[in-house]
């Protein structure tokens, strides 16, 4: 495939991806940080729905013989890298993909997050030859749950997708998504306002 074709496909797919990220509000720092504070579950809902959909899509594709692309299992790198990634997501209020949606929507600090990300990727690139023997050695191959169980992909993927769907139904019952949006759809809900209503501070009573 030519690079131009690949870029056109990427732009079209990215457009749909960005549209879905914006409409679902998951790119909002208030929703990403809210998830990490375990008070807003919109991120988890989208994430698990996308995983469940992916499991069903890949079940169909696997039955037609389409090749999977699981990443090599590098327990140490996955653990250390995953932790750093998580800390970064909370501090940035973004993921590597959603920061672009923040830029598109107009948040100014997202440009700085992007520059930080590019410098992080550059720093890693220079350090990679030195880090590789430490973090990225001793790969146990591309382990997958179906591979470990010696089962066909669908036999693990379909039940897992069903478990996710049931969990999402329960999650939605517990925390309806409409209550998590906030009136400006940025994940800042009224109970997240400063505690003037729940615990009135008499010394700082506001006179309108």
């Amino acid at each position, binding site marked *: 495939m030519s*690079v131009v*074709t*690949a870029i056109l*496909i*990427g*732009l079209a*797919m990215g457009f*749909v991806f*960005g*549209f*879905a*990220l*914006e*409409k*679902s509000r998951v790119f*909002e720092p208030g929703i990403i*940080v809210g998830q990490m504070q375990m008070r807003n579950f919109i991120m988890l*809902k*989208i994430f698990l*729905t996308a*995983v469940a*959909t*992916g499991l069903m899509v*890949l079940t169909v594709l696997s039955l037609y013989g389409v090749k999977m*692309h*699981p*990443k090599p299992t590098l327990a140490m790198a*996955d*653990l250390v*890298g*995953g*932790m*750093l990634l*998580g*800390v*970064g997501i*909370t*501090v*940035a209020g973004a993921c*590597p*993909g*959603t920061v*672009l949606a923040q830029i*598109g*929507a*107009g948040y*100014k*600090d997202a440009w700085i*997050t992007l520059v*930080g*990300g590019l410098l*992080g990727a550059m720093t890693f*690139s220079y350090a*990679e030859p030195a*880090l590789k023997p430490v973090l990225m050695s001793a790969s146990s191959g*591309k382990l*997958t*749950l179906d591979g*470990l169980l010696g089962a066909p992909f669908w036999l693990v993927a379909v039940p897992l997708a069903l478990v996710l769907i049931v969990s999402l139904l329960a999650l939605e019952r517990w925390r309806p998504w409409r209550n998590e949006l906030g009136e400006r759809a940025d994940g*800042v809900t009224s109970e997240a306002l400063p505690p003037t209503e729940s615990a009135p501070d008499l010394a700082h009573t506001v006179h309108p």
Partner: protein
Amino acid sequence: MSTFSLRRAAWSPYVAGVVIGLLQIPAFLLMNTALGASSSYVTVAGTLASLFDPGITRIEYVAKHLEGAKNWWQVALVVGIALGAMISSRLGGTARTGVSRAWGRVASARPSVRFPMAFAGGFLMLMGARIADGCTSGHGISGIAQLSVGSLIAVTAMFTGGILAALLFFRRI
């Protein structure tokens, strides 16, 4: 207004999740890869760095991120994310300015605090994603959907790190 009108401010997270999950179809069938975002940062950073330091392309890791259609597909994907979000926010009346008001609640919305935080967050995020060889998209959405053991470890670590950072650094609201 219909539930999925382009002019609505918000769609159900379940609809958005299904749309994102369905994007695996063109990713696997047209590009022979899974959805991902963070390796595009290596492609862009490596290209920019090579303008000042041509020697960077001698690093095998960088070289393999600079060649071929798949790398530029992912760069285009993240550019498309910005365009899609821009159009969606204009249609939905949710275009933003400045920084999110959430920052004023959990930390500080002042540029002198928020901008260094954004930079540090971005830096850590990509260092981590590149060490783990994937981010919320590549390990999270795509890796778990492929039942990858490494991705399960990475995503568990990601949420653990994220929750710990929120507990340590932010005000509970």
